[in-house]
């Protein structure tokens, strides 16, 4: 039986654990900087080095960010949550335990509504539907350091440890096993990332490790309610890898079961080069973490009134904004999704829509030429040389017939290059559209005189030659003739 066929008989059950780095200036339990890329072990102090006698002191900002995340993900925030020690030995874990939360996490019982659906080869979403995914818990914990086994001159003999990350604040977001396809898992992750970006609690940068994901996956015969044996997959450095690793793993498990084998509970690592998963050595995962309440920290108590205030002051979340874009601006779901993926892009679009009075055009420019130009120049939207206001002005100039859409593209490129407004660019390049009838008629007469044969052919019924005359006039006017006006004038003039 072909792989497709085998997979069709099984249903995957997927759960995700996401670690999001909270955007604080200092670490979770000390004053050290969280800045990425500093020289090894420079952002450290007695607390995050785990020196004897040092004690943790909780960063309030991190609590605020975690609470806002929990609320945005529909979690109930516990008025009292408890920090716990997770004990294990590893060279990059300086205290021999990680301060996390266990029995009573910060947030519980969350749910998110996610738009999910299959993608066509072109990336179009088909079979779009809303799904509810439940979130088991959101808790706070500190990050560990980083072991460096490769890339240094004496790496064959030595391993190095960099503790700059040690103590960096994380929110761990654990989902219920609610995903039934790798696409659903992908859509959930995209939604989650977007939400965290909107809240400003995480920069969502997977390369720098500020967003990390582990997946649990099992398969079961279609129609069954029982859960199969789950396998944990780690080393997933992008959402695409998550999806690919899940697809690989679903097929692997389905094949093993179809051939009468059994699945072992284990942790597997994704190999992005071989595009497959392989088991981690079992010795490394045989942990009894011996959790117990962290005696160095008091239970975290939050005033209900403060939690309510945090909830009241949440920004408009991406899902709501996307829906609003569809209804308020009459955009397609795809455009609305693209435009809301980054808050700054959505803000840009809205300002541009307001200034142009033409939201559809604003959307087209924002997802089209603007995105392209930004990408080509390696700029973020905040650094765009063409402001949302100026782009709005440009759109109005097109809509008023002053310049053509085609010329507008040239104007935009020049605005992007020089940083000037549209009006000075149009003036400087002499790109104002010629709508003046006598002026255009003069050009038409000149073209007619220069092309007597074509004129005769046209008049004898070769209608296709109309385009030829349009082209000639455009050539004479360097493309500045107003196409609408030219069209009308030419229809008449060629018959005369």
């Amino acid at each position, binding site marked *: 039986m072909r792989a497709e066929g085998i997979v069709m008989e099984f249903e995957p059950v997927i759960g995700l654990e996401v670690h999001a780095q909270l955007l604080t200036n200092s670490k979770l339990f000390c004053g050290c900087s969280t800045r990425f890329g500093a020289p090894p072990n420079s952002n450290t102090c*007695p607390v995050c080095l785990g020196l*004897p006698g040092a004690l943790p002191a909780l960063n309030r900002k991190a609590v605020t960010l975690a609470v806002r995340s929990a609320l945005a993900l529909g979690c109930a925030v516990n008025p009292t949550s408890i920090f716990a020690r997770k004990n294990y030995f590893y060279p990059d874990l300086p205290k021999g335990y990680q301060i996390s939360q266990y029995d009573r996490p910060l947030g519980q019982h969350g749910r998110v509504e996610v738009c999910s659906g299959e993608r066509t080869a072109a990336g179009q979403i088909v079979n779009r539907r809303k799904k509810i995914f439940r979130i088991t818990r959101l808790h706070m914990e500190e990050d560990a350091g980083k072991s460096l086994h490769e890339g240094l001159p004496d790496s064959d003999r030595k391993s190095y440890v960099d503790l700059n990350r040690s103590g960096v604040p994380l929110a761990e977001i654990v989902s219920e096993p609610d995903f039934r396809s790798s696409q659903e898992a992908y859509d959930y992750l995209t939604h989650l990332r977007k939400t965290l970006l909107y809240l400003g609690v995480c920069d969502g940068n997977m390369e720098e490790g500020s967003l990390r994901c582990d997946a649990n996956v099992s398969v079961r015969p279609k129609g069954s309610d029982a859960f199969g044996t789950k396998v944990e997959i780690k080393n997933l450095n992008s959402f695409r890898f998550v999806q690919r690793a899940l697809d690989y793993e679903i097929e692997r498990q389905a094949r093993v079961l179809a051939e009468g084998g059994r699945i072992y509970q284990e942790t597997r690592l994704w190999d992005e080069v071989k595009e497959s998963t392989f088991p981690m050595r079992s010795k490394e995962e045989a942990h009894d973490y011996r959790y117990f309440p962290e005696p160095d920290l008091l239970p975290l108590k939050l005033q209900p009134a403060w939690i309510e205030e945090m909830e009241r002051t949440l920004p408009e979340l991406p899902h709501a904004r996307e829906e609003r874009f569809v209804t308020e601006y009459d955009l397609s779901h795809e455009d609305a999704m693209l435009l809301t993926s980054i808050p700054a892009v959505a803000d840009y679009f809205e300002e541009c829509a307001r200034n142009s009075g033409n939201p559809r055009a604003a959307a087209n420019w924002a997802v089209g030429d603007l995105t392209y130009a930004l990408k080509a120049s390696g700029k973020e939207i905040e650094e765009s040389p063409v402001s949302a206001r100026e782009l709005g002005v440009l759109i109005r100039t097109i809509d008023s017939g002053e310049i053509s859409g085609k010329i507008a593209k040239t104007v935009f490129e020049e605005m992007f290059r020089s940083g000037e407004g549209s009006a000075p660019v149009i003036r400087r390049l002499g790109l104002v559209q010629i709508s003046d009838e006598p002026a255009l008629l003069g050009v038409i007469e000149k073209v007619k005189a220069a092309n007597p044969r074509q004129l005769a052919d046209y008049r004898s019924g070769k209608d296709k030659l109309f385009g030829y005359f349009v082209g000639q006039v455009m050539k004479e006017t360097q493309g500045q003739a107003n196409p609408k006006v030219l069209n009308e004038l030419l229809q008449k003039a060629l018959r005369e």
Partner: protein
Amino acid sequence: MDLRDAWEIRESVNRRKVSAAEVVEAALARIEAADPVLRAFLTVEPERVRARASETDAVLVRGNGSLPLAGVPVAVKDNICTRGVRTTCGSKMLFNYTPPYSATVIERLERAGAIVLGKTNCDEFAMGSSTENSAFQVTRNPYDLDRVPGGSSGGSAVAVAAGMAALALGSETGGSVRQPASFCNVLGLKPTYGRLSRYGLVAFASSLDNVAPLANSARDLAVFLSVIAGRDWHDSTSAPAPVPDYVAEINQPVRGMRVGVPREFFGEGLDPQVKKIIDAGIRNAVALGCEVSDVSLPHTQYAIADYYIIAPAEASSNLARYDAVRYGYRTPNPRDLSDMYRRSRGEGFGSEVKRRVMIGTYALSSGYYEAYYARAMKVRTLIRQDYDRAFEKVEALLTPVSPTPPFKIGERIEDPLAMYLSDIYTVTANLAGIPALSLPCGFTPDGLPVGLQILGNQFQESTVLRLASAYMQACPVSAPPLKV
């Protein structure tokens, strides 16, 4: 100069009758004379001490002012971090460890003009009741050189008892300052949990650990405590409760003070000689005008078992950081990472530490957590409630500190259970988090010191110190001469 009176020293230094430099010279001379026999200190750096003393003198002259502990020489237990000075915790594991920062209590002492003389011997990571578990040396009792000074803060108790330092810092997890204070005829105070910052105190059992001061008088303890107490943002468990002027408070009268005697502390196992001295001490309290009554703390019998689950459990986690990766002892030529862990910890830790790490690891293991640690925390609540009820009726409790006088060196080292029972009267105060003090009460016919314990309600250090002060003024103990 009497180095056993911190109050007099600071008065003399503040009035410029004597300089801090002269005080530390006297202390260093006393250490040089007595310590080769007593072996209380692990580290003394005379040049550093002299430099600190000169700085203090300069500060005093420049500011033309006074400091609460001007020129007072202080001995510090070697599990309290001192910037730039080796801090070993009595362990081979940290034989070469020098902290880059000082504990909050050290910062506060130095700001108050005190001079840290050196670091004192202790049981390894404060685990023990005799200071024999030190990886480095055996400290001797100044009243009988064949006997232990108690522990784990034995070195600190000996330093103040023998007049090598005016004050000393120790630490308490289950009686580690009160018991050596009792064995060495000095005062030792375990304050309320949270009264003193633990930042820089190397953790043994975080929910039980306290920094604890030792001195030769209640007044000295009061001024000492006033300087080092109070909220510290480095330690989340330090209490925001305001710090009273303990020196002013100890002069309040004790007549009419309601004092309880818990019957559970006078049962089997209490040495008759100790009982006789404690009974006399209780009669003295009556003579002072205290209203003494019988009280009950019914869960006391579970205290030792409870303590020896909670303390090792927390210790097993706290001591995980000694993994030979960043500092401390590392076994030569490890084969791989796991070999480095095993051999470094196996060679670096002594047997009592290993015993407790193993007990604690077991108690926290999956499947045993509920039966041991979680249950022990519940029993701990019951013990605390016993005290809450008792303190509704009385202001202070009087009990023995140790069931026996100081025992012989080597006598109990092979018998951990007998050693654990040394803590039977002291661990409850740590479990309940209340203040408790040991003060000199008398000597056995063999010339061995016996201490009396005063327990008070949460944050009532003033009450405890007031009773101790009144008692010592009315009933001074005449001590036999020191052996050194």
